[in-house]
């Protein structure tokens, strides 16, 4: 779970590109970027229209047709309970993406606000926020997520709340660092000089500039959240069954690795590609918005 | 046969602004035991020239011409053969001993590893020779220094260590690239005298690279002046100081502050800046700054021609 912890904790896995970017590598990164974007578009559309497609329900159990191979009726076959694998993949995308996007929005909203206020007003408020961030980051995120869901009870809204809360410290750090580096700049001083209010400076001057790094971090946050949701669901502590989440499908597929490895590999591939795509896009955006590697 | 001879050496560096010709057709010969000073402003290509001799150019650099060392072209040598040459045949002292000594290895390690890489000596003997070398370059309490790290020494002491390392395998050619530029003025003369003394004692050839004509005065047999990647004048040291022919050399000599001039005298400078090395110019590179320049100067490049007794210069209108 290195990716999850490193990303949540240090903000970003920033590694300077020490070698000169030749035109060739740049163009390659460009194509990959568009492929990643296309994949995410595909997954989003598939998840959105899943219930409009003429495919079987993802939860209809058919104990007679268990682990069937691909057929006209079941395009990718059926799982250990005879449920349609393709349909579960699509509906799984709905839950994995839904949780993956909604939870970081919570982190973005609260963490972004806290971080900007802390970076702008400084003083005791900043000390308090930074201290709070340190405390939450003192808990291994996965362990904290497990403990809280154990108390709250398993449900999708609870999962979103918990994962969203866990993202707040990281977003706070990013927003604070960006605000700190922007506040001494001329355009902020100029706005102050013409008597702009704090609210105006924060919203009109700083927010548009902080938004880009936050957006890049949001995409990396989506990747991390999909992984954490997958891990929790895989262990049976996330999305409650029978809802199809990729994590649950992988967990169930693990039981039949010897007879039907595809049942675990298909959702695994879907999750890997989606996480990779979000990481790629987020990393490209981050490189665009902040050429300095050590900015966080 | 000369120890080192450069034949039409060119070094090109690709940059975002185009090709940069750092060394532009240098011919040079150095006999065994001889010392040569190479003088020029920063950016004139003298460091690239020294790196080309040492085969330590950046990977992207393109080299033309030949670097003949004891009759073989070392730019064509296989890495392993080159490695055996470095140390016992060719050695170098870099500008800043703070950055040229490894900060995380002890002085002793850095000295002993060089000895063991080239000489058939066991660890004990290598340490003994290391101590001897440190003593020879004037480092007090050499036994204790062996266990210390570079940051525990003063700048002058560090450069003495670097010199000890360079001398350790008795090289036939020592290249000293601005060896005193990073040091306090008070120790500069000591280091230069140490270099001069050791080269004479060990009968080594030395190329002393500097931007300061004062450094080479009295310490080298010959001086070559570099400008914009080319050698523009070359002469026995005494002859060059007494009768410079190329206007650039003359200007350099005039720019040395004189102790006996009156207080508040304006320091003489050379007007203008060196040309942009990414742009080729047809004529003499110094012409735009030269007060003797005439029309023909910007049309064709003057070649390096001999006048008398080893004094060469490249100028259409010599003094």
């Amino acid at each position: 779970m290195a990716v999850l912890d490193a990303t949540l904790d240090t903000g970003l896995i920033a590694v300077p590109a020490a070698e000169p970017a030749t035109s060739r590598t740049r163009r390659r990164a460009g194509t990959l970027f568009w492929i990643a974007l296309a994949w995410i578009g595909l997954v989003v559309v598939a998840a959105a229209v899943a219930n409009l497609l003429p495919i079987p329900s993802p939860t209809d159990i058919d104990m007679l047709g268990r682990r069937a191979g691909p057929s006209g009726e079941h395009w990718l076959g059926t799982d250990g309970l005879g449920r349609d694998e393709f349909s579960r993949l699509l509906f799984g995308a709905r839950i994995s993406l839904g949780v993956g996007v909604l939870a970081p929005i919570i982190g973005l909203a609260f963490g972004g606000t806290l971080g900007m206020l802390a970076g702008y007003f400084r003083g005791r408020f900043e000390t308090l926020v930074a201290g709070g961030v340190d405390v939450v980051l003192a808990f291994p995120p996965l362990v904290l997520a497990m403990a809280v869901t154990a108390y709250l009870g398993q449900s999708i809204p609870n999962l979103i709340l918990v994962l969203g809360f866990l993202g707040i410290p990281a977003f706070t750090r990013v927003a604070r660092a960006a605000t700190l580096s922007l506040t001494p700049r001329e355009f902020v001083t100029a706005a102050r000089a013409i008597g702009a209010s704090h609210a105006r400076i924060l919203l009109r001057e700083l927010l548009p500039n902080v938004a880009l790094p936050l957006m890049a971090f949001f995409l990396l946050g989506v990747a991390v959240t999909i992984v954490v949701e997958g891990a929790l669901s895989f262990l049976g502590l996330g999305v409650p069954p029978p809802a199809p989440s990729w994590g649950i499908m992988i967990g169930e597929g693990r039981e039949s690795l010897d007879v039907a490895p595809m049942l675990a590999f298909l959702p695994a591939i879907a999750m890997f590609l989606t996480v990779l795509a979000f990481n790629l896009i987020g990393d490209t955006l981050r490189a665009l918005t902040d050429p300095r590697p050590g900015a966080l | 046969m000369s120890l080192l001879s450069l034949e039409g050496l060119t070094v090109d560096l690709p940059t975002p602004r185009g090709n940069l010709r750092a060394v532009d057709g240098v011919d040079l010969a150095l006999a065994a035991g001889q010392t040569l000073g190479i003088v020029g402003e920063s950016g004139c290509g003298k460091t690239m020239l020294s790196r080309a001799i040492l085969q330590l150019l950046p990977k992207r650099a393109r080299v033309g011409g030949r670097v003949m060392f004891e009759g073989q072209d070392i730019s064509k040598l296989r890495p392993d053969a080159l490695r055996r040459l470095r140390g016992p045949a060719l050695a170098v002292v870099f500008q800043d001993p703070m950055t040229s000594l490894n900060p995380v290895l002890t002085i002793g390690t850095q000295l002993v590893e060089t000895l063991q890489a080239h000489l058939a000596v066991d660890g004990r003997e290598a340490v003994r020779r290391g101590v001897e070398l440190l003593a020879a370059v004037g480092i007090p309490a050499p036994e204790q220094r062996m266990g210390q790290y570079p940051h525990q020494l003063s700048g002058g002491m560090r450069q003495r260590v670097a010199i000890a390392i360079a001398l350790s395998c008795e090289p036939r050619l020592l290249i000293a690239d601005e060896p005193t530029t990073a040091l306090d003025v008070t120790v500069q003369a000591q280091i230069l005298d140490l270099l001069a003394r050791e080269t004479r004692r060990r009968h080594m050839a030395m190329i002393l690279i500097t931007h300061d004509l004062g450094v080479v005065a009295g310490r080298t047999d010959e001086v070559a002046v570099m400008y914009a990647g080319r050698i523009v004048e070359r002469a026995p040291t005494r002859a060059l100081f007494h009768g410079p022919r190329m206007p650039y050399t003359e200007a350099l000599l005039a720019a040395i502050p004189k102790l006996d001039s009156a207080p508040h005298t304006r320091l003489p400078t050379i007007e203008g800046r060196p040309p942009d090395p990414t742009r080729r110019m047809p004529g003499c590179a110094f012409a735009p700054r030269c007060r003797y320049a005439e029309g023909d100067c910007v049309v064709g490049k003057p070649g390096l021609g001999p006048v008398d007794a080893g004094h060469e210069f490249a100028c259409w209108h010599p003094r």
Partner: protein
Amino acid sequence: MAGFLSRRLLGLLPVLLAVSLLTFAIASLLPGDLAYVVLGDQATPENVAALRHDMGLDQPIAWRYLLWLGHVLEGDLGRSFRTGQTVLTAVTERLPVSLQLMVVAEAIGLLIGIPIAILCAVRAGGAFDRFMTGTAFSMLSVPSFLSAILLIYLFAVELHWLPATGYTPFLEDPIDNLRGFLLPAFTLALGEWPVLMRVLRSDMIATLQEDYIAMAKAKGLRPARILWVHALKPSSLTLVTVTGINIGRLIGGAVIVESIFALPGLGRLLINAIYTRDLIILQGVVLLVATGFVLMNFLVDMMYAALDPRIRHGRA
């Protein structure tokens, strides 16, 4: 150094206090009454009220926190109402397994990461470098439970080389013990090496530009010595830190991996506590893990300061 150390130690106290407060808050403020959990089917209003009184759950929350903190400071983290085991025994029993897993995983990660980083740095921008950097980036998108499944499928199901699950204590049979640890440790290492490799690679590229590397070449040293001694040593400061921090961070991955490979470590203890709603164990383990995490980060901070005097002076 002593002043620096004591200042940093003092700064640790509020963080640890806040960690205990947050742990307690999660356990006490979130819905899910302990008394109901303990009693299960026999939960009648009278029984619940009596038990709540016995357990002190009817006391004011601040008082309960102070009581709990007092017990914790005395080393009493409570006792499982399911197994009767104290939290401390349960943890000390499981800790060595998790530690072994994390250390072996980090070691494998270094074993893979260091040579790749060096080879990449030597020809930065070359084909091998681009391929490995891309691979490392992709590997960062592979969650540990995915690599676990892939490795089980390959080495246990298809090749039958290694056991998919099972744990043998080291003292009983060291070979079997290591065989059992190989797949889970390798799983974690697959997520670790890209992080370590990227850190070392970029430091190494910077180091290779240094004058002392040119000097080492000019001395005629063998390329292997230049890379492994002259370049690796000064490049490894960040690597040491990241390695230290990551050993602690692996606890998150260890939870998943232990559960998949049935290793009786802290992670399994935690997950079992969640499955059986053994809230005392859960609270105790979370507190200990978070405290360990904080102390580990502190230790790494100290180690970094010890390695680099500039940091010691800059911060002090």
